[in-house]
């Protein structure tokens, strides 16, 4: 951590106008080959109440400012984290608690589909997908052999269209307008699909070879047909043939990484590869697969739905035998002797354990004179805003970023001006900031909030490194 930022942050509370957060640029201007930046989006269901992110060690004055939704920033070094964040306490230097963003331009309430990543009103219909979600935009900027990868602890119903929690189903990200992404629903299916080119199991290998054969067949057939066409008819088939070819190329790129993939194969015992798997084991299994894909270089951007409102929670530490209905928890129903708020804390604590695993592991992998985590940003946020029946008035984020991040937000509790106040910022502003910082010059990402009578386009300038 550089010192000038630390010094700057000794002020405990800054007014809205004083929140400039400037510091030296942290991104390493390495003369050696520059490693890619990696992004991990982890989102959860059932809301993330803003008050749950407030450090308990805040002074009375800070607590009052928090209640008033005044804008201020605080150095986290001076504070304890809420208990549920204890697994990531060791990463406080890399942590940002970001409060005050709104997302009323998204679908809110119980289920939100692509809303929290796309900043538009979404539902289960493809027609509602307006554009590529922010994770896909970043994956385009930091290309990798496989491209974007999505994992999801799917809900059993409601939040996705089919309710098949172990398959490859429409996820919460989108590739482009009306183009859903597909997410892996279990560690087993993720392993099978992502590492099939290096599978040692004979049946899996032959399955891979069969799929390979079919894709080659289809590519040759469609390309042959396209070749015979001219004028306006040609692209109707040629585009399709090219798309098949693109998938083959992607597979070939992954196949070419065979040796590296074998070195980084996820080490998962049978428990994590079973069909009947607890939610927590599913998360743990996904975490291992996620880490393998990042560390091997298969991808630079992953999105991980750790749960959705409709996910039936099983395996939670302390209440392992319970099948926790998150909707009931959202309505305040206790589980065993635990009040709903306690159950919520247990769930978030579990999420933090997952995040600690990811961050610690990436910190242990050397890269370009530092570690892989130096070039990583991880976002943890709710898919639907501030609570169970959300309306998007707040959209809290935890950010864990390595030293080479291009945003100047680290090791701080930041509360932005409340909804509708001068200087208020939205989810769109936040994603615009990230995209701009990493080279996408978009003026504004996402839909605008039609109810907000302030200038709401553009990045959050104060976060520029």
């Amino acid at each position: 951590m550089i010192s000038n930022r630390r010094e700057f942050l000794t002020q405990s509370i800054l007014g809205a106008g004083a929140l400039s957060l400037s510091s030296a640029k942290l991104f390493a201007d390495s003369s050696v080959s520059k490693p890619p930046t990696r992004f991990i989006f982890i989102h959860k269901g059932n809301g993330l109440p803003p008050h749950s992110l407030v450090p308990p060690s805040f002074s009375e004055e800070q607590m009052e400012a928090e209640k008033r939704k005044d804008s201020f920033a605080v150095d986290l070094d001076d504070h304890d984290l809420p208990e549920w964040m204890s697994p990531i306490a060791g990463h406080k230097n890399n942590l940002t608690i970001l409060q005050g963003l709104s997302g009323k331009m998204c679908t809110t309430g119980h289920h939100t589909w692509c809303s929290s990543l796309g900043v538009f009103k979404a539902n289960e219909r493809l027609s509602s997908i307006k554009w590529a979600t922010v994770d896909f935009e970043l994956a385009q900027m930091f290309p990798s052999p496989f491209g974007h990868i999505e994992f999801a602890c799917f809900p059993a119903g409601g939040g996705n269209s089919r309710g098949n929690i172990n398959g490859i189903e429409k996820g919460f990200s989108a590739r482009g307008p009306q183009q859903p992404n597909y997410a892996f629903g279990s560690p087993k299916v993720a392993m099978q699909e992502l590492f099939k080119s290096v599978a040692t199991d004979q049946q899996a290998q032959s399955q891979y070879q069969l799929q390979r054969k079919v894709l080659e067949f289809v590519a040759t057939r469609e390309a042959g047909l396209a070749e015979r066409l001219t004028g306006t008819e040609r692209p109707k088939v040629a585009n399709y043939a090219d798309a098949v070819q693109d998938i083959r190329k992607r597979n070939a790129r992954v196949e070419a990484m065979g040796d590296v993939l074998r070195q980084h194969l996820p080490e998962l015992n049978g428990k994590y590869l079973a069909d009947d798997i607890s939610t927590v084991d599913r998360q743990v299994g996904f975490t291992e697969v996620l880490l393998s894909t990042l560390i091997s270089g298969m991808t630079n951007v992953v999105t991980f739905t750790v749960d959705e409102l409709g996910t039936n929670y099983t395996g939670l530490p302390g209440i392992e035998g319970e099948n926790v209905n998150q909707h009931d928890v959202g309505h305040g129903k206790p589980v065993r002797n635990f009040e709903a708020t306690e159950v919520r804390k247990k769930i978030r604590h579990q999420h933090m354990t997952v995040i600690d695993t990811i961050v610690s592991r990436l910190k242990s992998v050397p890269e370009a004179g530092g570690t892989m985590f130096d070039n990583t940003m991880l976002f943890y946020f709710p898919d639907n805003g501030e609570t169970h029946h959300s309306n998007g008035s707040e959209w809290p984020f935890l950010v864990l970023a390595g030293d080479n991040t291009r945003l100047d937000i680290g090791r701080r509790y930041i509360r932005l001006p409340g909804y509708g106040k001068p200087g208020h910022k939205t989810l769109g502003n936040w994603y615009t900031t990230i995209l701009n910082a990493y080279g996408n010059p978009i003026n504004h990402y996402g839909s605008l909030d039609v109810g907000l009578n302030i200038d709401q386009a553009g990045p959050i300038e104060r976060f520029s490194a």
Partner: protein
Amino acid sequence: MRQVYLVCFITLLLGASMPALVSFAEDASARLLVPEHVQRVLKHRCMNCHEGENAEGDVRLDKIAELKLDARLDLLNRAQDQIFFQTMPPADAPQPATDERSMLADWLQSGLRKHNASNLDKKLRYPDFGNYVDHETLFSGQIKDKPFTPARRWLVSPQIFHELVNDIFMLTGQSRQRSFYGVTNPFVLPDHSGVRDYDNTALDGGHLLVMLNNAEWISQKQIFSAVHADKDRRTLEFSNPQDRWYPPISPPAFVTIVSQKSRPTNQEMIAAIHAQSECVLKRKASVEELDRYLPLLQSSIELGGNTEGLRQMLVSVLLESEFLYRQEFGAGEPDAYGRKKLSPVEAAQAIAYALGDPGPDEELQQAAFDGRLIAKDDYRREVQRLLANETHFNGPVDPGISGKNMQSHVSTHPKLVRFFREFFGYTGALKVFKDVTRSDGYYQNPARGTAGTPGFLVKEADRVVDWYLQRDEDVFRNLLTTEDFFVYHNKDNETGQKIIAEWKEAYARLKDTDWKTDPERVIAENLEFIQSKKSLNILGGKQKREFLRHMYFFGETIGKGRTPFTTVSFAHGYTYNHSPFYNLPPTPNPFRYGDVEQKNFKGLDDTEFWDYPVEQPFRITNRKGLLTHPAWLIAHSGNFQTDPIRRGRWIREKLLAGRVPDVPITVDAQVPDDPHKTFRERVESVTSKAECWKCHQHMNPLGLPFEVFDDFGRYRLEEPLESPENLISRTKTKYGSDTYRTRSVSTLGELLGTEDSDLDGVVTDPFDLIDRLSQSERVRQSIIRHAFRFFMGRNEMLSDSQTLIDADEAYTENGGSFKAVVVSLLSSDSFMYRKDVN
């Protein structure tokens, strides 16, 4: 100022010693021929501005020889646009004569087409450019070209795709599925008003990804069915308990392969390939295809065994691009004009898909098979037969708006209704999110499982369209001028009347009893009577509460001389509350009678509810036709404001076959805030500037009369000035509207562009405007043009002139029958003939 024209016309600097051939060193084949007559025009009309170092827009002909082919084609394309859209030379410069302009256009077009690089050709194939074909020329009768449609692939619509999946599983009758667990429809039509399903969409990577998943699921189901043929489904195990459906029958060829342990013979594999080809492509595999598929199947079976090997073959056929395109190439020898008639099989599909979503019925297939689908009369006969058939195409107009509390309107010919819903664009209401409190809490935005208020409004507009389509008389005029609408109307007239009669009888019998104080006794004493009335859904677990609710509901409707809506407001899932958007009184909300059995119930306030017209459609005042339907008005509005410009543009383009250029990129189209002015005044303040008025003159005078309807579609004479400084009082209810000072709405406008001096002129209000439009020949022809686009899947060309004239005559000669238009279009040369233009 010339400098404002950022996209500049290329001027070709051809000096006195200008060569007739400009050659390019890097590409000898890319020579640019400039005939002498073109050189003269260029020199005379363009060189003044586009020459030398100071050339406008930095475009110089003297540099053209240095341009690489791509750059040159880019410039020529820009030049072609400027000439075609007549944006160059600038309006304040001397204009070329018509023949000079067409000389330049022809030269540019041939130069670009030589390289298959004309962007204008591509543009003119898109819906937004349909009106660029000159209307007068189209209907002049002077065009003698023979109509045809270019040979093509036309992407199947979302609805056709769904029917095709049913066909793959060989499902018929009741076994056809409304949805498939594992199939995602890869196609979504655009949202904008106007015809949307054109033949120029290409498959892309997004479609492929969805299809890869679909193909996996479909093939697994096909295999499951083959493996478990003739087995009792109760004994079967399913890998996903939530996905237990599988097709009841399987092609025998699949069963043969999966049920044997030994490798199948070539004959058995060929039979399976044919079977899958018939399921997916509706034809047997060709010899060439067999040559490709057989080795694939053999090697796949070698690698993965019979079952998995077969499945991979099924997947590869499912991924044929042919599956997703309607193929229309024509067959046989071309005629003297280079046109081929559709083959009988192509014709059968073209006719069926023009009229609906399912493929050809048996009679149509038989006609194709028997060689009775060749001549115009054959087409006419089949189209007329299918239009009279009330079952084959019967189905929901738009399953997409169906939800937990409302189902789409069902029609005998949903696709005909879809033409008008696309043409009018009222489905756009589903995409406009509204601030609920501004509607006094009555508006519900679409959300999960419900299309909300706009869903109801769209369905009610669909019903108006279908009502007039079924009558098939003077259809265009009726849709433009009807004062009769459907609102709520979830039961047919007869059922509704029966319900109301029972309710009135019940209320008359019970109103003077002690129903408020001793409801149990009243129920007991009248049990037989209550049981005899099916519409009194009272008896059961909570009969006291239900009885009280009914009686209070009857009391403030029937008891006050009004007819209640035929569904009680406390029915489970009740969501009818949109009558105020027609300026009709509200109906009770679902919570109104929630506390009637509580001891502390204080009675009901004195709200006046709607006197519901059971028999519908019924007359609504201050409405005239679909342009005054709330669905259309909301679709053509913003989140907080009306949108007179878009309303006007719709009329200009859709009814008057006119053109309005897109907003220039240099224009920041913002309506200024001003708390003292109406929205109209604010719009006028910013669009009346000369440079804006050039375009806005084509829209504002047509759209501004509709300011008499607000952005929720409510009729008004006063516009609230919704600004804090005009606030009179805050609402006292949770979702109520605040009250603001108001100003009178001006409804004046002007109609220009009917080419009929009796109709063109100042209009007093939207009703005056609509009356005039409905009498216009040009409006009628414009609708015919859009119908052409809908059924042909493309823009009209000048060569389609005869088709359009015939369709127009069919309409007028048959008393305004839209079905006559359909028959005419679907038996026209434009529909029957294909020509390879590539």
